């Protein structure tokens, strides 16, 4: 299967999102890939809107099974979430559990006016009633397949598709 260059996917997202941007919007990226995508989006949209980052480690539903992620990053929401239209950004949408955790975390900062979800790749395989409002690409991958966003030392983004064992 062929996946486009992440920059092309971001361009597609920008095209979808740009018409809907208002002054009371904010961008929030989910660590780590979502933050990279969010930063790229914010830059290309060229609007001076507030941004924030979320680490959902403290909100994961599998904590009691796998424990705490060894590299937790602080969440930073340096704006008032109350009544804000939040664009939540992640790299890959799969089961929906990360987005669930991110929304819970966001609500601990306040009550947003709305949350919309933008993802670079929607790979299918949802386990929760969550869908992306904006997606750079929509795929149907088998459960064994694995797609991940990577960033190299030069800051360039790459998508890697792992076919898995199957």
């Amino acid at each position, binding site marked *: 299967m062929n996946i486009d260059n992440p920059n092309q996917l971001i361009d597609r997202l920008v095209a979808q999102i740009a018409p809907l941007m208002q002054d009371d919007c904010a961008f929030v990226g989910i660590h780590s890939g979502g933050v990279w995508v969010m930063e790229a989006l914010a830059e290309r949209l060229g609007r001076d809107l507030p941004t924030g980052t979320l680490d959902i480690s*403290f909100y994961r539903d599998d904590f009691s*099974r796998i424990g*705490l992620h060894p*590299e937790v*990053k*602080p*969440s930073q929401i340096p704006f008032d979430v109350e009544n804000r239209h939040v664009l939540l950004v992640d790299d890959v949408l799969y089961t929906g559990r990360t987005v669930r955790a991110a929304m819970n975390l966001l609500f*601990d*900062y*306040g009550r947003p006016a709305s949350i919309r979800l933008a993802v670079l790749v929607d790979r299918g395989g949802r386990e929760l009633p969550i869908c992306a409002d904006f997606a750079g690409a929509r795929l149907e991958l088998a459960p064994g397949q694995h797609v991940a966003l990577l960033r190299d030392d030069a800051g360039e983004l790459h998508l890697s598709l792992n076919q898995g064992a199957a």
Partner: protein
Amino acid sequence: MSANLQLTPDGRLRHLLTLEGLPARILTQILDTAESFIPVGERELKKVPLLRGKAVFNLFFENSTRTRTTFEIAAKRLSADVINLNIATSATNKGETLLDTVANLSAMQADMFVVRHASSGAPHLIARHVAPHISVVNAGDGRCAHPTQGLLDMFTIRHYKGGFHNLRVAIVGDVLHSRVARSQIHALTTLGCPEVRVVAPKTLLPRDVDSMGVHVHHKMETGIKDCDVVIMLRLQNERMQGALLPSAGEYYKYWGLTPDKLKRAKPDAIVMHPGPMNRGVEIDSDVADGKHSVILPQVTFGIAVRMAVMSMVAGSGA
């Protein structure tokens, strides 16, 4: 020595009993995790759901309202249920053994014991006997260890100084009876601090304290000279007069931290104290409240550090 007891076979923190023998990797991971809990404490809603449904028992065989409170706040911010037991005034006085008490509380479906005990090694003993799903966090045992205090002190130093590799740190006061000092020394040497000093009269130092990798000073003037960090230890009331020291006044004169003595440390030195302070005994009010003091931030950081420790041990799996 307790590394095996404290770590799971795959190297995760299972109990926190002492900082001795814990690898730098684990100490750094605790500090990093604590860093992520700092913003939680600054939010309006200061809670995360990590330990929802878990029962944390504060087992205080020795009273300490302050330490118990910080653990209680930390556990509650992790959404745990907290049960406080002041055992100093209950069971063991009725002849029940420590292990019987622990077995009883385990039967109440405890998930974590936070233990304060007057005898060194008591949390180790409990950790050896608890069911596999229960974690033990040492909240101070005898003169042995106070690992979360040591960690919050490391957090504070890293926060203000960026790291440990070029630092000169002086620990001043009653090292002999201090579990805090022992935990600080283990943590500093593990994290790569090149020069740790202890400053005290010989009566307040263990005989072989140099075997812990510290430099021994008896005089304040030379002891804190050019130091980046000056940690003052609390002097217990009962030790102020007697065979260890003639009087609080004489102690203050020679080993109390005054603005004048502090001038010998580096101009940007920070001053720390584990609390509660004896103003006018080990530290002058002008220093305690002055620009070098980071004593109150220590307390704030303490909550985040305890949240980090509790969430790590609770998630270490059975």
